């Protein structure tokens, strides 16, 4: 049986309180780094652990931290990406609601490592409960000297501010998040300069996901080798999987990186609903291309899923069974991206609008010959040409649906109706 680390406190009734967290060994990592390690050594530990970002892109966290210039005359910032907008994803919410101190400690250790004295946690505005619990945790931690001026008697000063989002998926994209934090419309920024060099207020800034930061204290306490021993070496660690959709036991699961998708869905999440068969699984939030039933033996880690033509993304696993119309799912997903497109670049803004119109027509049984080719062409025009990865995600997902389930699309066009109705 795999030992839960990140979700250790999740089912405790007072998991969100400082006392519970401390009782389980909380804030010892912070004390340890302040006592025993220089910031550079902490960066080194994280590099050795091979921790990769849990926000979606899987970028090596230690390497990202390493890009922050050592000597800058500007303050440095740590931003926590708690915008969690990727459909099918809810892990960060659960951490913040039920074990917020884990994030607070992760923030403090990480800020110490990169030399930041201020962190902003960008939480999506809908997460009211998470925000309240996080606020309370910050206040408690400040009261105990884990935050504030001279943390635990050291010369490390650290403040955490919460910034509430207001309902825009694009704020999860890290540079759009910075724009949003600066009080602008959340539209992605050009890179370079990269945030590590010139991010928030043009200062060196590190942006990390909630789960990524939550891993850091455990790496400090148990060592990088422990972390690397779990799952594939290049993509290791304990991992939170969000399982939802047409499955018996939806929920949040902590299991090793690289666990086969089939095992995750069929064993841990109990498999399909009675009388149903799994038709396909979206393994990493709706940006991740769908994997048809016969591809489920893939390992749930960044590299294996990429090799299989999909991605781990946010590990939001959505299970679809055979009662579900793929055209409908694809349409709904594209509607989502269309609705959330920030509007900055032409292919995403205009292209997705066109795609939505065609898909809706097909789904409604009003498709025409040539529509599918038009969709292929639009995907080509969008993919790789958008400003940020939102447009890419949309095009990739649609391409996968068109490739794996083309017959369903064709049926809609030819029969001029949805065969599932």
């Amino acid at each position, binding site marked *: 049986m795999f030992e839960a680390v990140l979700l250790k406190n999740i089912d405790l009734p007072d998991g969100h309180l400082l006392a519970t967290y401390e009782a389980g060994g909380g804030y010892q990592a912070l004390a340890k780094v302040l006592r025993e390690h220089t910031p550079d050594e902490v960066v080194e530990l994280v590099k050795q652990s091979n921790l990769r970002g849990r926000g979606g892109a899987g970028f090596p966290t230690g390497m990202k931290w390493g890009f922050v210039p050592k000597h800058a005359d500007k303050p440095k910032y740590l931003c926590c990406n708690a915008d969690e907008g990727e459909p099918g994803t809810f892990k960060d919410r659960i951490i913040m609601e039920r074990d917020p101190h884990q994030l607070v400690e992760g923030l403090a250790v990480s800020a110490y490592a990169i030399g930041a004295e201020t962190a902003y946690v960008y939480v999506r505005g809908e997460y009211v409960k998470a925000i309240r619990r996080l606020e309370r945790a910050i206040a408690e931690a400040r009261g105990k000297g884990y935050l504030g001026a001279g943390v635990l008697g050291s010369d490390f000063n650290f403040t955490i501010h919460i910034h509430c989002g207001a309902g825009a998926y694009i704020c999860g994209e890290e540079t759009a998040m910075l724009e949003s934090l600066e009080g602008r419309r959340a539209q992605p920024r050009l890179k370079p300069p990269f945030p590590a060099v010139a991010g928030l207020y043009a200062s060196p800034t590190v942006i990390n996901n909630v789960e990524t930061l939550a891993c850091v204290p455990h790496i400090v306490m148990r060592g990088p080798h422990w972390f690397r021993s779990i799952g594939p070496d290049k993509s290791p660690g304990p991992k939170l999987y969000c399982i939802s959709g047409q499955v018996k036991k939806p929920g949040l699961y902590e299991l090793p990186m690289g666990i086969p998708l089939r095992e995750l869905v069929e064993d841990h999440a109990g498999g399909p609903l009675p009388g149903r068969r799994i038709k396909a699984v979206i393994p990493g939030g709706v940006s991740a291309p769908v994997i048809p039933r016969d591809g489920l033996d893939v390992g749930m880690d960044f590299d294996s899923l990429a090799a299989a033509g999909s991605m781990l993304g946010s590990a939001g696993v959505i299970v679809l069974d055979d009662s579900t119309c793929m055209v409908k799912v694809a349409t709904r997903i594209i509607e989502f991206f269309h609705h959330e497109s920030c*509007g*900055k670049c*032409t292919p995403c803004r205009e292209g997705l609008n066109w795609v939505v119109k065609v898909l809706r027509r097909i789904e409604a049984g009003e498709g025409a010959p040539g529509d599918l080719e038009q969709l292929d062409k639009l995907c080509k025009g969008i993919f790789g*040409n958008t400003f940020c990865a939102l447009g890419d995600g949309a095009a990739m997902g649609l391409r996968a649906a068109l490739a794996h389930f083309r017959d369903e699309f064709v049926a809609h066009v030819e029969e001029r109706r949805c065969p599932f109705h």
Partner: protein
Amino acid sequence: MVGITIDGQRLDVEPGSTILQAAQRLGIDIPTFCYLKRLPPLASCRMCLVEIEGLRRLQPSCATAVTDGMVVRTNTPLIDETRSSMLDMLLANHPLDCPICDKGGECELQDMVVAYGPRRSEFRDPKRVFHSRDIRLSPVIIMNVNRCIQCQRCVRMCEEVVGAVALGTVEKGMDTAVTGFEGSLASCDQCGNCVEVCPVGALMSFPYRYKARPWDLAETDTVCPHCGTGCQLTVGARKGEFMRVRSKEEHGVNRETLCVRGRFGLDFVESRDRIKRPMVRRDGALVPVSWEEAGDYLRRSLAAVENRAAGGLASARLPNEVLYQFQKLMRTVFRTNNLDCSSRWSAPFDAVGPLLASFYTRAPLQEVIDRDCVLVIGGNVTEENPVTEYLLRDAARRRQAGLLMLSARPSRLDADARLVVRVPPGGEAASLAAVVAGLLPSEALADIGETTGGEGPDRLVAALKEGRSVTLLVSVGLLRSPEARATMQQVNNLLRVLQLLGKEVALQFLFDRANQLGAWDMGVLPAALPGLRPVADEATRSALGRSWNAEIPSETGSDIDAMLDLCVDDRMGLLYIAGTDPLVAYPDRNFAKRALGAAGLLIVQDTFLTDTAGLADVVLPAAGYGEEAGTFTNNEGRVQKVRKFREPAFEARGNLEIFDFIAALRHQTLLPSSQAEIFEELTRLVPAYQGLTDDGLGSDGAFTTAIPTPPTGVFFAAPRPPSVHDGLVLVTGDGLFHNGYYSERSEILNTVAGDPYVELSTPDAARLDLSDGDLVVVRSARGELTAKLKINRSFPRGLVFVPENYRALHLNGLMRWGEYPCPVEVQRAPAISEIGSHAPAVGGKNFGQGMAGDSL
């Protein structure tokens, strides 16, 4: 340098250059929409994507820096397909209403589709429609959101270049729309730069709307007549009728930008306030006559005043050739140096002359402000010289120039300044003296006397010490003050001290008249001959005299103040006024009126029927702006061609022709007499203009060159500190929408300017129990006026500002010559009264197309 290969051609470029810039240098065309040369790249339209060897994805060439050895391709099938696909997507929701679109024929989207576009589109779903009627954002700007392609050029122009931050982007994704706060631009600058940069027909000029098709317009490149910045613009006329103004990206100091006056304020050429025929005074009234009758009348009256003094006053809005000929006429035919070229102030030439000779920098503004420190002294550059302000903002934001402001009036540019020193009105000279004292080593202080520093000047000293190069930009408004001489002397001191400290210095004036520097250069001054050489200088006098075949009087003449004194003393025989309206502009209306009435013979030669013309004995209709060719010299010392785009209206004659006519009445001829020959003569006789040729004034004009003479003599002593005045003082000047004479004859400017107003600080308003929009009375020892109150949060206590050039307000009726700033009281206007009889109803006028069919 880094080497790049594009489509097989190799090129070395500066590090940091983008692929797009490199391609442009190779003449390789890459299509763009969102790219704006003067701003950092946005890279959102994705039209400029190119292939880079070794990279999987296409990259935006506008935003990708060249790296050494980079190999780029811009002409592959994949790129063709991608460009076509971008256009296809843009067109999917574009209304394609080109036949009724103002932009049809000069639309970048249209052009792009022709060049790269899809031959046919598969799009067959209903299009997005934001609205069925265009949205009237302001009196001059109208929007069709359906046509917008979201390039964001307009919004970035408004925020980053103009600094108005009036336009913005609302909603997101497909609903994204460009608009103003709550859908209105009613309180923006109305500069229309957003309209200019719009590649499609989304933002449009309302006055020009549906008026013409681009291919029906005759376009003439010329120079804006409104201020000394000297922006290049292109006038579009149809059969001699003025239609619109545009600007070109590549040309002039302005490079595509204009302010509201340049873009929308040229309709004054169609003003009905024209002088149609010559007029002479008979039995107390002006009656229209023929040119011959006017000649007879003049011959007689000129003879009658022959033995008394003569004087000439010309507008600094007239071209160089006209001004040059005017002073020649006055000096040779009427044998006088009584000359001036401003009705609002007289330049103390003993202070201004040496300052200009030693320091005036005749070079592109762009270069002059690309320095460590740029100190702007006096005035309000945002309102007086808006396009200069845009460049200053750019220098401060993107070029690391440390912008320093020293003035009584706040301006929007303060926000971009490293340091703002607010001085009491009239206190500029004393503050500058303190700065000079702060920069000088203390033992030198004895020389120039004691000065009181203060926090502002001290910080200015520190900032100036830091820079290696310093540029001073001096508002001409400082010449209004009785302290003008001292102010100019202190500017001189400051430049000398900076020079002694080893700094590279530069100086330009911020003139509010289009050809003020030219007017000075041409010698329309009592103490200076063409080339700013003193009248007292024997050698110059005789050299010019030889060329002009006449003897030039040797004594310094009278400036405007002294000329009016001569009139009042009944000693002025002839007062010859060309193109200016001293009755409205002279800072003492009562005195001006008395003086003008007392001149023996008052000739007014003008395009418009001014208040002054109403007092004249003879009124001569002259060609207006756009009706005669010539040159202007702008603040940079750049000589640019002002071109003719139509014939003089009614019986008006060219100014030069009228001078010939007058000279002939005195049995003399002014040779040469054509504009081209006069230009040629002045390039021989005016040193700074030597070497200029007509051909050489290409599309960007050419620079005059003066050889700086080293400053002579000791430092000027510090002035007395200004007498402290507890009460309110009135200063005046240009507003954004009005800078005189021309602007008040522009219907469009009148519409956007709205009613005249009185500006006051928040604490003063509170003390007087006044709130924004209240009608207030401003009262001086001389008179009073009533206007609406505008509270300005950044105004200093004690300052009252009323914009000039609302003719009917009779602002100069409050002022007395020599007393500026003018002490005043402000109070709430009595509740029910005949007020408003004063205030002209200029706001809300309709013009052009009616508002019908457009929702405001």
